[in-house]
C-alpha cells in the first residue's frame, strides 16, 4: 500500500469478532445443534501397547437408542498421517493399539449418555505387549517394535546435517563447552475440547464442522481416509476455542463422526472429554539434548554441534518436521559459522507429540540460551552484551542456508536491558535472587507447505456489490489470534472504509480459497498479503469507474473516509457505495482474488524445507526471580 499514513492499521481496534464473543453468540463446534443430531463416543484402549485379538459389538448394537456402531473394519483400510512421509495412523485401530487412548470403536446414539453406555458394551480382547515408555526404553528394546517402519527399530526418523568442519571450529576456540539438557514435554490445554459435527447428506456429499486449525489439511486427508472424492467433501472450521498446535492433525473423532453419519443418516457430533484431549495430545516433545559449542574470548561462537533425541510418542504426526526443527533455528539469532546437527525421534507408547507452539524450537532454544549463560560466566562476559555482539547478520544466509532478512534482536536486547534495570541489578541482588536474559526467534510462516506444491499458501477473494457490502472470503481459521480481524483491517485500509463495513467469511472449503491453516505464525503475513492484493485489484476497478465519472485519471484518486475522491479535493468524489455502483455498472460482478506464496528459499539438502520463512520474528526477555 503506497500510503504515508494509515487510518486503520496501527490503531488499537476491537477485534471484529469480539462482540459476539462477549455475549456468548459465537458458535464453537460443540455449540452447533442440528435436527435429528446423534451423539458419538469413541471406545479407547486401556493398554499402552497390545494386539487386538477380537472386537464384538453385538451387545452395543442391541442397546436401545444406538444408531450405529463402527470399528476399523468399517473404514477403508488405509493408514494416514499429516505428513506424507509418516502415514502410520488409523482412526480406529484394527490390529494393534500403541497407547492408552487409541480409539478402537465408535458409537452414535440418541444422546451422549447412551453412546457412552454402548461403548462399555463393546467387548475387546487384547493381548498386551511390553510397553516402551521412554527414549531409553525404546532404544534398549529394538526387539519390541512399536511400528514396522522407521530409520531403525523404534526410531521414527534419524537426521544428520553438517555445514562446515566443526572439529576445526572447536580447535580454533578459546573455550569449548559440552552440556546436556532435558526439556520435559508439555501439552496445549486449549480451554475448548475438540469437537466435530459431521453430516453425510442424502446426495452423498459430506460436510464436517470441526474445531480445527487446518481445515484444508483435514479436507485433503478425509478424502484419502474415507475414500471419497475431495470435491464431495466440505470442511468448515468453526471458531476455535484455543489451538496452540493441538488442532492441526486429522483426528479419530472427526473421521468416526463422518462414518457414523453416513451409516445412521443423521448429523453426528463427537465432542472430546478433557481426558480425551490429553490422549489426542500432539504436544511439545520431551527432548534430550547435547550441545558442544566453541567460543572465542569475546564470546563469538566458532561452531556448534547439536544432538537431539525426541520422545515422539506413538505416532508420526508432524514429528519429522519437529525433529528437523530441533536443529533448524539455532543459527538465526547469533552468528554460528560452522554447524552440525544430528537428531532422532523415538517412538514410545504414549500419546503422540506434535507441533505445539514453536514446533520443536523452544526446547533447543532453552538449552542453547542456558549454555550461552554458562559460557559468558566462564569467559567473564556480560550475558546480554555477549549476545548483543554476536547477532546474526541481516540479509545473509546462515550456515544451514536460512535467509535472515531483517533482524530486530539487537533492539529487543537493548530494550529489555534498559527496562529491567539489568545494568544495576546484575550481580547486585541479594542471595536467593537473580536476574537472567534469554533471546529467541521464530518463523513468520513456514516457507514450505506440508505437502510440497507450487500453489499459493493463502488465497483471498474480496467481493463488493451495489449495496456497498464488502465480503472477504479466506480459508484462514480464527483460533483467537485475530485472523478474521486482520483481514478486515487490511481490506478496510486499502478501500478506505471501516472494518465494520466488511464481513469476513472464513475457513469453509466450499466457499473460501485455500489457506494452509493457522500455524507457524503465518496468517497475518500470508493471508494478509493475499487480502491486500485482492483489495487492491478491486480498488483498481473502482478507481477506473470513478475516474471516468469524475473525468479524471485513476492515479489521482484516493479511497478514504468511506469515499473515493480526487486527492487534495475531497468534495470532488463519491461515497464508497456509489463508487461500487459505478464499478459494477462498468465491469459487472466485482469479485477479485489475491494469492500469496512465500519466496522459495528451501536449502538444497534433505530437511532444507524446515526452517525457511519469509522473515523471522525475534524476542528477548529479562526475568528477575
Amino acid at each position: 500500500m503506497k500510503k504515508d499514513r494509515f487510518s486503520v492499521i496501527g490503531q488499537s481496534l476491537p477485534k471484529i469478532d469480539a462482540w459476539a464473543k462477549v455475549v456468548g453468540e459465537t458458535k464453537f463446534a460443540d455449540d452447533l445443534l442440528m435436527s435429528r443430531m446423534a451423539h458419538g463416543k469413541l471406545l479407547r484402549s486401556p493398554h499402552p501397547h497390545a494386539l487386538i485379538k477380537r472386537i464384538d459389538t453385538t451387545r452395543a448394537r442391541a442397546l436401545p437408542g444406538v444408531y450405529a456402531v463402527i470399528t476399523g473394519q468399517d473404514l477403508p483400510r488405509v493408514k494416514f498421517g499429516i505428513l506424507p512421509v509418516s502415514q502410520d495412523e488409523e482412526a480406529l485401530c484394527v490390529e494393534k493399539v500403541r497407547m492408552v487412548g487409541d480409539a478402537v470403536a465408535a458409537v452414535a446414539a440418541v444422546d451422549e449418555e447412551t453412546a457412552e453406555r454402548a461403548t462399555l458394551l463393546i467387548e475387546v480382547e487384547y493381548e498386551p505387549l511390553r510397553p516402551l515408555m521412554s527414549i531409553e526404553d525404546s532404544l534398549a528394546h529394538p526387539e519390541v517394535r512399536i511400528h514396522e517402519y522407521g530409520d531403525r527399530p523404534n526410531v521414527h526418523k534419524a537426521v544428520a546435517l553438517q555445514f562446515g568442519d566443526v572439529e576445526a571450529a572447536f580447535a580454533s576456540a578459546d573455550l569449548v563447552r559440552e552440556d546436556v539438557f532435558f526439556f520435559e514435554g508439555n501439552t496445549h490445554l486449549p480451554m475448548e475440547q475438540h469437537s466435530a459435527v459431521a453430516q453425510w447428506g442424502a446426495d452423498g456429499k459430506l460436510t464436517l464442522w470441526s474445531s480445527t486449525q487446518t481445515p484444508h489439511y483435514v479436507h485433503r486427508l478425509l478424502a484419502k481416509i474415507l475414500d471419497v472424492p475431495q470435491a464431495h467433501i466440505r470442511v468448515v472450521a468453526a471458531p476455535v476455542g484455543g489451538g496452540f498446535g493441538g488442532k492441526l492433525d486429522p483426528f479419530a473423532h472427526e473421521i468416526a463422526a463422518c462414518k457414523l453419519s453416513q451409516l445412521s443418516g443423521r448429523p453426528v457430533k463427537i465432542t472430546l472429554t478433557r481426558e480425551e484431549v490429553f490422549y489426542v495430545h500432539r504436544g511439545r516433545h520431551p527432548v534430550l539434548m547435547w550441545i558442544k559449542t566453541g567460543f572465542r574470548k569475546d564470546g563469538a561462537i566458532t561452531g556448534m554441534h547439536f544432538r537431539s533425541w525426541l520422545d515422539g510418542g506413538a505416532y508420526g504426526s508432524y514429528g519429522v518436521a519437529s525433529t528437523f526443527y530441533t536443529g533448524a533455528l539455532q543459527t538465526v539469532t547469533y552468528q554460528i559459522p560452522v554447524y552440525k546437527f544430528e537428531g532422532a525421534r523415538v517412538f514410545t507408547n504414549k500419546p503422540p507429540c506434535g507441533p505445539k507452539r514453536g514446533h520443536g524450537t523452544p526446547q533447543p532454544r532453552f538449552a542453547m540460551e542456558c549454555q550461552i549463560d554458562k559460557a559468558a560466566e566462564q569467559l567473564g562476559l556480560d550475558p546480554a552484551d555477549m549476545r548483543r555482539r554476536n547477532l546474526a547478520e541481516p540479509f545473509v544466509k546462515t550456515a544451514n542456508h536460512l535467509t535472515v532478512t531483517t533482524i530486530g534482536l539487537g533492539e529487543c536486547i537493548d530494550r529489555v536491558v534498559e527496562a529491567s534495570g539489568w545494568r544495576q541489578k546484575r550481580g547486585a541482588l541479594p542471595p536467593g535472587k537473580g536476574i537472567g536474559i534469554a533471546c529467541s526467534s521464530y518463523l513468520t510462516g513456514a516457507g514450505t507447505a506440508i505437502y510440497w506444491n507450487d500453489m499459493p499458501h493463502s488465497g483471498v477473494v474480496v467481493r463488493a456489490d451495489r449495496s456497498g457490502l464488502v465480503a472477504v472470503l479466506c480459508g484462514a481459521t480464527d483460533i483467537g489470534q485475530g485472523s478474521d480481524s486482520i483481514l478486515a483491517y487490511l481490506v478496510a485500509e486499502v478501500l478506505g472504509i471501516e472494518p465494520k463495513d466488511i464481513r469476513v467469511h472464513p475457513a469453509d472449503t466450499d466457499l473460501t480459497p485455500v489457506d494452509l491453516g493457522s500455524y507457524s505464525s503465518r496468517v497475518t503475513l500470508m493471508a494478509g498479503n493475499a487480502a491486500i492484493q485482492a483489495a487492491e485489484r478491486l480498488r483498481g476497478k473502482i478507481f477506473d469507474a470513478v475516474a471516468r465519472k469524475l473525468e479524471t485519471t485513476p492515479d489521482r484518486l484516493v479511497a478514504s473516509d468511506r469515499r473515493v475522491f480526487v486527492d487534495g479535493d475531497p468534495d470532488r468524489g463519491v461515497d464508497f457505495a456509489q463508487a461500487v455502483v459505478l464499478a459494477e455498472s462498468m465491469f459487472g460482478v466485482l469479485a477479485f482474488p489475491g494469492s500469496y506464496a512465500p519466496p522459495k528459499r528451501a536449502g538444497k539438502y534433505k530437511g532444507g524445507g524446515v526452517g525457511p520463512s519469509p522473515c523471522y520474528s525475534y524476542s528477548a526477555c529479562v526475568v528477575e526471580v
Partner: protein
Amino acid sequence: MKTLLALRINGEDRDVLAAPHKTLLEVLREDLNLTGTKHGCELGECGTCTVLVDGLPVLSCLALPIECQGREIRTVEGMAQGGELHPLQQAFAELGAAQCGYCTPGILLTAEALLEEVPTPTRDEIKQALAGNLCRCTGYTKILDAVELAALRIKGART
C-alpha cells in the same frame, strides 16, 4: 426418568423436562439451547462453565439444576440489558480481553459477581476473584485491565 424443573434464568421462567442427574451445564446447553455457557473440563477445575446463582459464581458442571429451582440463574446471555452491553462486556471487547473467547463467558460472570460485591477492587482482589478461571490465550493482563476499566466506568456512571 425425567423430572420437571422450574428454573428462573436471566429473569425468565423456564420449565424444562430433564433427567435429574444432568448437570446445570448440560441442561443450559442441551435442553435450553443456552450455548453461551462453555465447558472446559467438566470436573470443576477450569472455571469455564461459571454461571451466577443468586449472584454468586457457581461451576455449572458441578451443580444440579434441581438444587437451583427457585433461585436466580444468570448466564452470559443475560448480561446485556435491552441491547445495551454490560460495561464488562464492553471493556472486554475494547481491550482485547477476549481472544479465542472460550473462557470469556465464565470470566465475565465471575467478574460481575466481584464488582457487585466490591465495586472498586484492587488488582490483587481481581486476581483473587478470577483465580479459578483459566485462560490460555491472553496471559490474563488484558482481562485484569478490562475488569479495572469496567469498574471505573460503573463507578463513573453511578456518581
